[in-house]
């Protein structure tokens, strides 16, 4: 039971829009949580585009530890935004004491280093912080990266929206890309880290479906990169494979589809690029995810895409208006926020393609 949604806009939008996108799909999910990732930030974060933002839910102790640790490494805080909360006994939500977004300046000796070195520092810092907070039950760190914030909570999405006052639009939280999911984890424990969207170094994914290749993926992925951890949800595997194919191997995005749902041997043999595809299939067989899934992803350059499984077991619709593209599980969600669009232009991603939206909102359908 799971529904996903994402919005990519030319103008800055508020998270209330994704709440509306998901509300009409509520019969399709289990109301067990709500989480979002906002990228390409506006509002109060617009002036900090090149600085890392720590997104965290934690206790007072956890916050103190995090700040001390970051200061010790050499980060200096330049801005902090705490989510205001509106508690009400009637709300169905499990809360943490603090929800913070803190913007940091890089340590002095890092300012002139390469992007890769900076990213490595951010990752190492997040992993270290996560490890401490987890071990001491002091909180959760969802992202520590430039131009991104994320929030995850357990409970009824409607109520989570009310608790954070996300239903009413304001000027503080704004972004051009927002991805959201209204459920927690049905396969494994309901914990905050298991909530989609998942984020790593500019890559975001959210998935509807079940990863029947979870064990294989997990065994292979945890040896591939130190950032591939957690595995609280079988859908994290989609993020790690995307990160691996696109960032580590530096392959064009279209090969992500060839990795997770490779073509059958017979079809590969008919193609000119059969040697390449056959090699990919052999060398990356442990990253195959050929179960029932649809995945929406966001790349560091702002492009958003969708792929579905090769058996068409989980759908996604891509809808476009003048300034907004929506990708979501059910068309009723898109009807809610794009009621005047030309529905004949809606795209239902097929089993052998990758649908990509660029920063000008041009939609490209890349056949596998």
């Amino acid at each position, binding site marked *: *039971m799971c529904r996903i949604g994402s919005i990519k806009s030319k103008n800055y939008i508020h998270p209330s829009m994704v709440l509306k996108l998901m509300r009409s799909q509520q019969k399709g999910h289990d109301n067990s949580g709500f989480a979002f990732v906002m990228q390409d930030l506006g509002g109060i974060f617009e002036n900090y585009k090149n600085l890392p933002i720590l997104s965290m839910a934690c206790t007072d102790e956890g916050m103190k530890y995090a700040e001390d640790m970051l200061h010790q490494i050499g980060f200096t805080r330049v801005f902090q935004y705490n989510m205001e909360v509106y508690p009400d006994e009637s709300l169905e939500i499990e809360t943490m004491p603090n929800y913070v977004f803190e913007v940091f300046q890089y340590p002095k000796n890092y300012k002139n280093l390469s992007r890769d070195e900076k990213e490595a520092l951010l990752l190492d810092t997040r992993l270290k912080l996560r490890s401490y907070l987890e071990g001491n039950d002091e909180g959760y760190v969802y992202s520590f990266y430039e131009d991104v914030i994320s929030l995850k909570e357990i409970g009824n999405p409607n109520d989570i929206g009310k608790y954070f006052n996300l239903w009413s639009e304001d000027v503080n939280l704004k972004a051009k890309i927002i991805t959201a999911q209204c459920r927690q984890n*049905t*396969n494994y424990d309901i914990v905050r880290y298991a909530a989609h969207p998942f984020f790593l170094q500019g890559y975001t994914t959210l998935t509807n*479906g*079940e990863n*029947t*290749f*979870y*064990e*294989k993926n997990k*065994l*292979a992925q945890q*040896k*591939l990169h130190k950032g591939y951890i957690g595995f609280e949800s079988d859908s994290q595997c989609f993020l790690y494979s995307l990160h*691996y194919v696109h960032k*580590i*191997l*530096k*392959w*064009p995005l*279209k*090969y992500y589809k060839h990795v997770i749902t*490779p073509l*059958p*041997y*017979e079809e590969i043999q008919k193609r000119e*690029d059969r*040697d*390449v595809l*056959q*090699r*990919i299939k*052999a*060398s*990356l*067989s*442990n990253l*195959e995810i*050929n*179960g*029932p899934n649809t995945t929406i992803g966001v790349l560091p350059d702002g492009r958003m895409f969708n792929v579905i499984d*090769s*058996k068409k*077991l989980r759908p996604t619709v891509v809808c476009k208006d003048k300034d907004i593209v929506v990708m979501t599980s059910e068309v009723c969600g898109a009807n809610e926020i794009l009621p005047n669009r030309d529905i004949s232009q809606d795209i239902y991603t097929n089993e052998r393609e990758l649908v990509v939206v660029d920063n000008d909102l041009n939609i490209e359908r890349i056949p596998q």
Partner: protein
Amino acid sequence: MNINSISKDDLPWIVEYDSDKCMLCGKCVAVCSFGAIKVDVQKRKKVGAISNEEGFQIDADQKAIPVIKQVIDEHKFCRGCGVCTKVCPNGAIKVSRNKTEIFGTRYRAKTSDSVKRGGRTNIHTEGRTLDKIKVGRISQMTDPSLDAIRHTFDLRTNLGRVVSPENLNFKVENGNLVEDKTKTLPVNTSIYPIIISDMSIGALSPRMWEAISIAVAYLNEVKNIPIRMSSGEGGIPDRLLKSKYLKYMILQIASGHFGWNRIINAMPYMQEDPAGILIKIGQGAKPGDGGLLMAEKNVKLIQEIRGVPKADLLSPPNHQGLYSIEESVQKMFLSMNCAFKFKVPVAIKVAASATSVSVYNNLLRDPYNIVGGFFIDGIAGGTGAAHEISLNHTGHPIVSKLRDCYLAAVHQGKQGQIPIYAGGGIGMNGNLAADTFKMICLGASGVFIGKLILQIAGCVGNDFGKCNACNTGRCPIGITTQNPKLTQRLDVDTVAQNIVNYILATDIELKKLLAPVGNSTLPIGRSDALVCVDRNVSKRLKIQYAC
């Protein structure tokens, strides 16, 4: 009679004969390839009393009647094959297992020699591990099952070294990945996950070997099932070496190097590359022991293929000149790769052993990436000839060893890079698909089978002492013999047809297992699909326990 000599009650099988039903046709004696029964006469005396006018008289009528008798001899003893029963029109003869099990003792005491036989282990101390494992992860609701008939399945696996993604020779050109041809990658082929393995012409009759190769060619050419067969040690006929069907053959080189003169001489004339080269270090049925083809089976055809005179052909227990894994990689793998211009996967076959993981770890770390497959053969593997002590008491069960090797590769982050093929008792319960599927879930890229193919061809032997006489060259079915008359009993076309049918049935059954777990490709390493009803086995194999 000598009280110390061997008696009928000492023999492993007792022939039961009913002279009242016997019509003296002689078929049973003619068909017995072991000379274990003979025609004999029995003296019968009928005594009666006649009373007539002269009074009372005794009448004694003596007769000599022909009967079938069991031969009592430590060499020509009944093997229990039951072919006599098959040919008897009246059901006058049958054989039954002698439960005393004293024959081995008598044999050794009499001959000062070890007991030899074919077949596989006859000691069953516990149930089969694979039968305690069930495919327990059934897709329901959130991940729907597939339809075994309507969905398409991709039942292919790798043979050949798979390199890690970082080591692929790709470069990006115009948004596409293309191969940088200046950097050569090890050859990798895509085949069916079942290999018919390692039974030589010599161990098998030429007709049996021909039937298998016909079946393999048919499955490939007509049924689109890319199954491969391994030649076994001893080469293959020259005509086949130079034919297009060579591409379905994995040529084996074992410690005797038999047949390789002919293979090398044929190389300039080969139209196709072979499917692979299999370096045999050991086998599961008689680990640490070399092959043996007795002079009796070494007939003219075999002499020609192997390039040898008529003599006992003994393969040494090890490859002379190879003393370490590193050396074997450098010498043998490299020379085999070179011989076929790096276009043919070169794999290794070893007996499963407590040391298999070390061997596999070493091969995975081979810096040349030239080891194209790791074939491990378990204790339940079969053989044409071995000392019974080896068959029954040496070797290592295959299932946990496969799992250990797979998990060792996982530990290195190299699972799948040297495909593991597991053998030794696969299909022993008659269901190849179930065994194959479970082994694949435990980490095998594929399996290899031998004995099962013989059973499909009509082998009457079983693992409870029946027949197991492959070593004698007197196979009553014509499978493991070079005797022209016995060979004639095997109908090549029927055997080929039966093998094809069995593999087609297995293909259907494999899909029936893939569909419920929701996989359209082979679930290599998907042990989450399995549950085990034995707590110890589940713990050992790291799969879920279920009860």
